Each structure stands twice: as C-alpha cells, then as structure tokens.
C-alpha cells in the first residue's frame, strides 16, 4: 500500500497529464459529426505517430558497435516515419475532397 502511494506521489506530474489528457481527448471527440469520423480516425492515427520521437531517441543513443540496437532502432525510425508521414498525407487527401463545400 505504502509502495503504491509512494509511486503515485513520485509520478504525480505524469499522472496529472494522463488524467487531464483523457478528458481533453473525450471532450474533443464528443462534438465530431459522423461525416468526419474517417478523417478524424486517420488524423488521430497520424498523431500517435509521435512515437517516432522515442525511436529517434533510441537510435541516437545506440552505441556505434551495437549492431542489434542500430538495426532495430533504424527499423523503428522507418516504421514511425511511415506512420507519421503516411498518416498525415492520407488524412490530407481525404480532407482535400471537402474543401470546395461548406
């Protein structure tokens, strides 16, 4: 019990961010018309591509000789970039079709 309390207190900043972000995420989606569900899903898909930052950090920390870390990190960077770039481009293509109308 004490351990859990200690853990919460140690990470309270992160926990606050998580809780607040959950509310923000729900609040934002709650008002979306169903017309925009697909582009929105696709846009959200691109945003979780932010995981690429973790991949860059991992790649940038890998020691020169550590082949396994280099290759895995490189793969992570490529896949993460695919998620980000592909996600945003696909979303843009979907939304392009809406532009002429109100």
């Amino acid at each position, binding site marked *: 019990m004490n351990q859990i309390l*200690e853990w919460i207190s140690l990470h309270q900043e992160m926990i606050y*961010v*998580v809780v607040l*972000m959950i509310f*923000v*995420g*729900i609040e*934002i*989606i709650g*008002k979306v*018309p169903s*017309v*925009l*569900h*697909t*582009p*929105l*899903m696709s*846009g*959200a*898909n*691109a*945003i*979780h*591509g*932010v*995981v690429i*930052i*973790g991949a*860059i*950090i*991992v*790649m*940038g*920390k*890998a020691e*020169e000789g550590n082949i396994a*870390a*280099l290759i*895995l*990190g490189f*793969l992570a*960077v*490529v*896949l*993460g*970039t*695919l998620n*980000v*770039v*592909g*996600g945003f*481009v696909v*979303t*843009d293509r979907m*939304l*392009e079709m*809406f532009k*002429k*109308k109100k």
Partner: protein
Amino acid sequence: MELNILALCYLLGSVSFIIGLKMLSNPASARKGNLVAATGMFIAIVGTIFLYQENGQKLHNYSWIFGGLLIGTIIGTVMAKKVQMTAMPEMVSLFNGMGGACAALISIIEFKHLIEVDPRVFAHLGYAFFSHLDQTKLLIILLGLIIGGVSFSGSMIAWGKLNGKIKDFSFKGQHIFNLLLLIANILLAAYIIIGRPEQSPFYFYIIIFLSLLYGVFFVLPIGGADMPVVISLLNSFTGVAAACGGFLYDNKVMLTGGILVGAAGTLLTILMCKAMNRSLKNVLIGSFGGTSAVGAGVAITGSYKEISLSDAAVIMGYANKVLIVPGYGLAVAQAQHVCHELEKTLESKGVEVKYAIHPVAGRMPGHMNVLLAEADVSYEKLLEMEVANEEFKTADVVLVLGANDVVNPAAKSDPASPIYGMPILEVEEAKHVIVNKRSMKPGYAGIENQLFFQPKTSMLFGDAKKALQDLLAEIRSI
C-alpha cells in the same frame, strides 16, 4: 538553454495536437487542423534530433536517423498518394500497425539496454539493488511491448482482411484461448517485474511472441460489421503504446499525443459500438459471427424479382423523392461519380434526391461521406440515419447501391440474427425499393437479407458503376 528550447518545442507540439484534433472535428477547418498537427509534429521531431540530451550527452548516429526518416517519408508519401479512395481504411490500418511496431521495437531495445547497462537488475543479489525506478521502467517497457505488439499484428490482420487476402477464421473455444493468451502474458510480465528471474530475457521473448499471437487471434475471428470498430480500437491501442514511450523518456509530447489518441480513439470505438448496438466486451472477445450465432437465423425462403433498366428508369424518373443508400459495393465499383451524375440528372427532371448514410456503411465510419465528397456531392444531401428513417416514409423510391447488412430488417425482427438490435436504415418504409447488387450472395457479415425477398423490392443485378451508367442513359432518354 538548448533543453529549454526543446521543452518549448514539445509544448508547441502538444498544443498543436490538441488544436489540430479540435479543428479536425469541424468540416470547415478540418484540413487546416491536419496541417496544424503535422506542423507541431515536425517541430517536435526536429527539436528532438538536434536538441535532445540525456545525461549531458547529445544524440549521435545522425546518418542512421536521417536515412530512416528519408526512407520512411518517401515510402509513406508514395503509398498514401497512390492509394485508392476505396482502400483508405486498409491504409489507416497499415499505418497504425507501423506505429504499433515502432512502439514495440522501442521497448525491445530499451529492455536490452536495461540488461546490458545494469545486469544486477536481474541477478539474485538480494534486494539491495531493488529500486522502484527500475520496476516502473520495466512495467512501462513491458506495457509498451504488449500493447504495441498486439496493435501491430492485429492491424496487419485487419489490413489483410480488408483487402481480401485473409479470410475469417475461428475455432471452438477461441474466446477462452484468447483469454488464456492474455492472462499468460500478464502473469509473465508480472513475474519479470516482481520476481526478476535470471531468465528474464527468455520470458521477454515469449511475451513478444504471445503478444503478436494475441493480436492475430484477436482480429481473425472478427468479421463484417465489426471491422471499423476493431481498427478504431487498435488505433487507440497504439496511442497508449506511444504514451508508454512518453512515460519511459519523461517526454511530454509523446505522453500527451499518445493519451489524447488513446482516449479519443476509445470514445470513437464506443460510439461505433453504440451505433451497432453491440457491447465493447463482445467485440473484445471476438464473438461476432462466432460459433453459435450464425446459422441460427430464420431460414429465408421465397423468390426475388428482377427489374429491367427501363422500368427502373421510369420509376425513378417520375418519382417525387428518391433516396440513395450507398454501401461498400459503390466504393468497390468506384461508382461515386456516376452516382452524382444520376443525382444531378434526376434533379434536373424535378426529382428530389438525397442520400441516406448509415454510420457504419462501408468499411469505416464516414467511409460513404468521404467517398461521396470526392464526387462533389453536397453536404446537405447526406442524411444521417435518424433523419433518413423519417424521410423514407415519404420517399417514392429507395435505391440501395451495394449496401446489405445496414438495410437488413432481420436486425429489427429476428432475435436469432447475429445483427439483431443493430439500428438499420428502414428502407422498407418507402414505396419502392430497388437494390443494386452484383449477385444474391450475402453481405460482409454473411447473413441472408429478407429485404430482397419482399414484394416491394426489386433487384437490379450488376456492377454498381456499369448499372448506374446504363440507368443514367435510360433516364436521360425518357
């Protein structure tokens, strides 16, 4: 100084994600919203590459980083530009899987790192080296691995199923098997974190394997109408996996972005489940079209009647109000442009034409809206389900274009049907129903449709594009 600038970059990134998602929820600002989020992402990425420090050390391996970014950018752009409108859902699923794999890879590397740098963590040297920090780190790493792995393999299966490469597959007791997989995974993870056995690396690889396996069996049995829900759910999974990375590196932009998507994706999933009157629990254990439900429905007997093109043209050309119900068949045939032509031609003859859009028509929520928007169909003509169900009562003709399960009256009348309880478009309220399909084969959910055998209904067989072109020519000649 540099770290302060990086903190600012991350702040800008986080705020841009929130504003971007907010703008994405309004048709007028949606495209700009996407750009805002993309800009924020760019700032965060560039900031990380040049400004990130850990223990006073900057990142290196720049050639690897830029090489990876370049390759990913080129492949991603080409794929996203080339993909057909019909294949959009597959594309989202594929990119989602890439994100999941990325998160899982990060966990794998960080785990190896943890062992190499501090082997004591896993040695039985008493509790002298037992620190909460390592335990938390392990927990996050394993969480990111499991969620990312499930998201990756699940998305790949969803991708394969949507483009028809992988068929539905289920066996008896699959739910229990899935549940056991999940429990085994959690127990193993808990054992690594709490017990810290020396063979941890070995257990770690088993967890990778079990997570991938779970993703596969999680999506394999799910068919038909549940696919959009699954993609949305996997999307939010990847969000949570990304947030794990944020926890691991104390990185706020990853944390906010990931949690934002995780929360939003979960809500979107629940909204979709509600539209289909299914509980998330049912979807989660993958029971749709499972062992018991299919085949229990009332056997459908009777005959259907076909309608000739000229008859269909006359009925529609002299109607007051025509409602069009688009479905996946329209998307497959790429018939949205012809459909818009038909709408304009009918309007020029004084017929009121509108579209009735079921929330889960097609392979993704909003699929039909995107498709029709591509063909320049105006927004006001797209009716949502509740409004459309009122309009059907006064409609002369309903033209069903390649939709099936979303107009199946069994959802209302047959408690044994697997789609019982799902809200449908009540097309049988209209005077005439013309159904365009390629054949009498059942729809994606694999259920027969009583609608086709009703006296009001007539069938117009053929590919949606071809049929509409011919119909258009007939109507013009009236």
